[in-house]
């Protein structure tokens, strides 16, 4: 785990890493998350190794228990539960990370602009952000999820492709998760902007872009990372909720959300089918939250 420390040999990062490492829950959260990522990525190799096809519905082995090649048994269509959980992890974590990053890009841009330029732009952008936060978003998102992409000029082929469904979910989630990042970035930017080293850079003649990129952005990275880690957890949950409402990743592509949703009705006969993805979602989100909490403490400016 020293890779992180070596990669950023910058002194504040070392201190933060040291502080983070001292936080045992956060550190175990990180281990769990890394393990989950490894777990998800191992899907294809393990599938090849065991010589099974996780997408193959085999009704004869419906609900069959564990075996030498099917470590967690079979689901309602006789597919291997373990491998599907691993593939589902790729989708869920993929959606989570992609939506968080996209949200971060939106949030950072808006937050930086609002915080640095201030004035009416700030007022406008923050009103907008607060407005978005205040809205009952889930119903709105259903409207978004129901939009016919062909009416927006996308080709019918694209609109029906599974890539479109992935992008659509990523986009929909990103459209709401940026607000927290934007607020945090703005708040940090506001305080950084008034810090005298930014004034000093301006006095020495640096242009706005240079100041934003060289003086402001590096100094708001810490809150951004904290915010992203917090957002990631809610995004993974959100994917599950969208699946629940029927707007998630379409089957047969597994995601933890739609696996959980499918398993709901089977709770009586095959409770484990619901417990595995539910547990994985829970563990992931809680791990991410612990990491976020640890990062927040580690990046606490008072401790710097």
């Amino acid at each position, binding site marked *: 785990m020293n890779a992180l420390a070596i990669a950023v040999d910058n002194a504040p990062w070392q201190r933060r890493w040291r502080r983070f490492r001292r936080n045992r829950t956060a550190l175990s959260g990180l281990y769990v998350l890394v393990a989950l990522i490894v777990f998800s990525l191992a899907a294809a190799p393990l599938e090849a190794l065991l010589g099974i096809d996780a*997408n193959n*519905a085999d*009704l004869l082995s419906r609900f069959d228990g564990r075996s030498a090649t099917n470590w967690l048994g079979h689901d309602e269509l006789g597919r291997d539960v373990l491998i599907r959980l691993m593939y589902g992890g790729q989708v869920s974590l993929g959606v989570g990370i992609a939506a968080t990053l996209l949200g971060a890009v939106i949030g950072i841009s808006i937050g930086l602009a609002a915080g640095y330029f201030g004035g009416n732009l700030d007022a406008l952008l923050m009103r907008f952000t607060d407005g978005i936060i205040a809205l009952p978003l889930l119903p709105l998102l259903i409207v978004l999820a129901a939009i016919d992409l062909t009416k927006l000029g996308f080709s019918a082929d694209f609109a029906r492709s599974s890539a479109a469904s992935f992008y659509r979910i990523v986009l929909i989630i990103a459209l709401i998760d940026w607000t927290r990042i934007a607020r945090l970035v703005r708040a940090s930017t506001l305080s950084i902007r008034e810090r005298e080293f930014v004034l000093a850079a301006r006095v020495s003649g640096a242009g706005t872009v240079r100041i934003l990129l060289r003086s402001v952005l590096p100094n708001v990275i810490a809150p951004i990372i904290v915010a992203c880690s917090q957002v990631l957890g809610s995004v993974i949950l959100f994917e599950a909720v969208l699946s629940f409402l029927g707007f998630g990743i*379409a089957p*047969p592509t597994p995601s933890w959300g739609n696996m959980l949703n499918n398993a*709901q*009705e089977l709770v009586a006969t095959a409770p484990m089918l619901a417990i595995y993805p539910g547990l994985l979602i829970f563990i992931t989100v809680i791990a991410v939250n612990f990491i976020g909490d640890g990062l927040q403490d580690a990046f606490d400016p008072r401790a710097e």
Partner: protein
Amino acid sequence: MFSPQRSCNRGLRTVYTVVAILSSFGTAWAAKDQLVIGATQYPSNLNPNHEAITSKDYVLGFVYRQATAFNGEGKNVCLLCTDFPTIENGLAKIETHDDGSKGIAITFKIHPKATWGDGVPVTAKDVLFTWNLGRQKEAGFLSLDAYDRYEKIDVVDDKTVVLHTKTVRSDYNELGRFRILPEHVEGPIVKSVGVAEYPKNTAYNRASTTPGLYNGPYLIKEVQSGSTVVLEPNPYWFGKAPYFKRIVIRTIENSAALQANILSGDVDFAPGDGVGLTTDQVLELEKAHRDKFDFIYKPSYTYEHIDLQKNNPILQDKRVRQALLFAINRKALTDKLFDSREPVADTFLAPISPFYDNSVPKFTYDPKKAAALLEDAGWKIGHDKIRVNAQGQRLSLDFGTTAGNKVRELVQQVLQSQWREVGIEVVIKNEPGRTFFGETARKRTYSGLALYAWTSDPDEPPVRNLHTSAIPVEGNNWAGNNIAAFSNPQFDAALDKLLVELDPAARKPLWFELQKIYVEELPVLPLFFRVQPFALPKWLKGIEPTGSGVSTHWAETWHAI
């Protein structure tokens, strides 16, 4: 710890939050004279003639009696009338109109004691009122044909009318869609707002607890839009007095939640009439709670099938269509998923139908034959085990259905796997119901396969689904259900004949011919007929599923032990 008061007068200090104290819990209601039914769908509105959804028919069954309905044996019987009109019993007579064309005069006798919920008798006046209203398109009635088929109606007396059809037709005594409205309630509304505004102002929606709107054993006592309908016995009901003092129909859309409600006893049962649990859920209940419930699986006339896109060159090849059907193990599918309860569909007709032709080819699972057919059609196994043709085109098809329908999605994924075994690639592209039915299926924009169900009355000819005139095209505003765009002159001709042939002996060969053409041409891939699955508490008796319509038409016979 807090100081008792704060001196600084800020006006807002007087804001208090009132917290509801959940101190006492209500008592459990008295058992057995009340019945709680859980349905997955809410009957959006209650006018018998507007917008048909199953949940509405289900609720209306308790409170409203249409003229006739199909019973559990698939026989059309009287609900509101005394004698079911047939040629045989003389209540229906072929007559010749002044212009020489032929029609049928049907004598319809309203039950002498039939009364609306407010004590006003159901009379010929109501029949005439409904007929006049129903023929006007602005009234927005679901079935124009149910009213427009009559040229005139003669009133014999208060309780007897003679309906004169415009043409001779085999379904002359299918009167279930003639839904008589109370003239004394709806009449004044039509008068005051006009026909065009009637749909928005009908008392069924505006004042749905008005007793005068209903004539069934129960009356609607209370409606919580979207969630609950409460029924109580109709004091003016003319039939057998209903057993339950109160029936509550609750909408629980999430089927897992509905299942939980049944297990917890909050809901006594979920009807199998298409608004309750799915077959696999009831099967599960049977596995785990055999002691608590009685189980009924009533074969129905609804069948799941896959429409094939007619414009897709791959599917234009009959051999490919046949191969598709040979390659899937429908028997194993229903054995495993539905415990063999849902019979494999060989044609559009259910095996329980008297007109079912058992001699048609059955397309039992035969992957070798499927492979051979595909080879024959020029599809050779490619490098990734998916077949390609001489042009290098992959044998790949899109496969859509209604997203969120668990059973269909399961079936879909099984079929996908089975087809892959014979080298056919299927890409699943599901859409929410509104998109699927509203756009993709209706405008026939799906590119390969589309899975959904067709339903019909017992021995209703498949005109709506397979007649050329029922192909939705832009010219008819995409109306009709022939989404596979099946068009076969022989088939059309047989159908047309069937529609006017009154002689049962002559009808049977026509039915057989239709089935032969269907199996030969395979416009769609038949999968299996659904059942109406009921899990009824042991103490509840008298419920008789019909297989086609709703079981509530005979709700007065329901009782507890």
